[in-house]
């Protein structure tokens, strides 16, 4: 059986900059796949290409057996691939419940059904108590959780999370990790971007490492952390001043 998501030689150029260059990778169904890389490695760009926010300059992207490169975001979503944003994009003037209902409406036309599904999911992700709060009034941690819930409400086969744990404290991170595991156990495949390795290693079945737009390593987490290329890329990063979470 082919993998759920297959990228072949995906490149994305912005003017003279190769944000992604010949990136090939696969995401097997029912796995949690980690995508890591230092600042500016091209992780978000790859997300944008896959989720239809812009077409790749070249390369192919197959999802569930269909070539989706160049599809509009709403079409990609309907095919079963949902993503969150690194910079949260909560609907500020809508309640938490309404935010999630927008996601649920991807699979139903009936408001009652969308509301019921959203309510269930809010309980699952631990946001039920805040259902009637406006999106704008949430903490960053809750906004991230809301985005995740909203994406989940679209009933994706593949959920792509862009730095959902950035800016969370250790306790919240632990909660997020537990939640992501629970999501996978319900049958949703997860592609997880983080730029902090420690967060990602324990939960990933497979890790892909990007640096300067190229894939520099991939494999099981234990192997990847010992890879000299990866160590070099991250050592380089250590000497770059970087403000955690506010990059």
């Amino acid at each position: 059986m082919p993998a759920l998501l297959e990228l072949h030689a995906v490149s994305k150029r912005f003017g003279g900059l190769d944000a992604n260059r010949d990136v090939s990778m696969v995401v097997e169904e029912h796995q949690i796949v980690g995508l890591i890389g230092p600042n500016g490695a091209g992780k978000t760009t790859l997300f944008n290409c896959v989720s239809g926010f812009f077409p790749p300059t070249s390369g192919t992207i197959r999802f569930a057996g269909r070539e989706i490169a160049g599809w509009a975001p709403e079409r990609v979503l309907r095919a079963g691939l949902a993503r969150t944003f690194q910079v949260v994009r909560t609907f500020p003037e809508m309640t938490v419940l309404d935010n999630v209902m927008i996601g649920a409406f991807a699979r139903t036309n009936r408001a009652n059904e969308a509301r019921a599904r959203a309510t269930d999911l809010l309980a699952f992700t631990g946001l039920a108590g805040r259902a009637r709060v406006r999106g704008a009034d949430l903490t960053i941690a809750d906004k991230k959780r809301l985005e995740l819930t909203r994406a989940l409400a679209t009933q994706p086969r593949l959920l792509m999370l862009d730095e959902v744990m950035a800016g969370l404290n250790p306790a919240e991170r632990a909660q997020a990790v537990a939640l992501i595991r629970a999501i996978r156990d319900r049958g949703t495949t997860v592609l997880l971007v983080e730029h902090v390795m420690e967060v990602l290693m324990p939960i990933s079945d497979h890790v892909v490492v990007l640096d300067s737009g190229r894939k520099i390593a991939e494999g099981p987490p234990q192997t990847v952390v010992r890879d000299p290329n990866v160590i070099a890329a991250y050592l380089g990063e250590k000497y770059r001043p970087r403000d955690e979470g506010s990059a």
Partner: protein
Amino acid sequence: MTGFARSRPGGWLPVAATLSALVVFPLVVDDGSWLNTAVLVLLYAGLAQAWNILGGFAGQISLGNAAFFGIGAYTSTVLLDRWNVSPWLGMPIGAVIAAGFAVAVFFPFFRLGGHYFAIATIALAEILLILFTNWAFVRGARGMTIPFVRGPDRRPTDSWAFLQFNESRVPYYYVVLGLAVLAVAIAIAVERSKLGYYLRAIKNDQQAARSLGVPVLRYKLIAVAISAAVSAVFGTFYAQYLLFIDPETTMRLELSVLIALVAILGGVGTVVGPLLGALVLIPLSEVTRSQLAGSGNTLDLVLYGGLIMLIAVFQPNGLVAVGDRVRRRRRAVRPAGDGAERGDAPLVGAPGAGD
């Protein structure tokens, strides 16, 4: 969202009370000028309700809705004048034409961002006005007179079949009341449906909406089609009410501005807002019009401009928000409020996480 559309238990009571008052009104107030003002209030309430579907729910500010109003007025009038088609039939035909026109024209407009969109809508109505002014088929600037329905004695007579009343304004009042109720019902249905949710998501964040599967362009087009159709229905009514139309009375810029202003003053994105706005603004503009008679329309525009600035500075959410604020304050006075809704989580998470 505020408004009786999200009906609280017992929320239908004020609705029933308001409706009964509106039904009884002409029986109590037997005065032509008051009745005229009431007809205009209901007319603008409906037009603002239509505007609100695109401008309020979806956040796409149109300053050209008079174009749809004009299309409605002209469609039924031409059909009546040339082929003796009843305005009751001309009304839905006008609505369909306005909706089709809106979809065709707004398709490119929706590619324009923010202010450019609003400017394009102004240009649209102005161009239509100029076209009609120079179009012989609709008698250009001279305008069109709705032919009288005559009784056996050759005198003008009332006719429900042809939506024409010469004896009294009361039947017109009930017709426009019915149409306004219809507009409100449509707005409520939109607000509660998937369409309403999607439109609000579009207003909040189009990219996020797309990421959740919202076909943004398609939903904006649905919104403008509904908005145009409802506006056109009132256009037909207006033609029958005045029994005369010309491009100026049906499509001028002040009309478009007033429609938007009624909704904005009342509170965008709510069902109650346009009703409140019409109730406050239309009598006011009638008074200034009669007081400043002869000085033309320009002073109206000065008044509207001033109002827009006042709203922007003091009450961006409109009159509806004043009510909400009062209600919230009253609730806050009560010891056990809904404080559990906010502030019970520690403010964790570095601000500005992400790039």
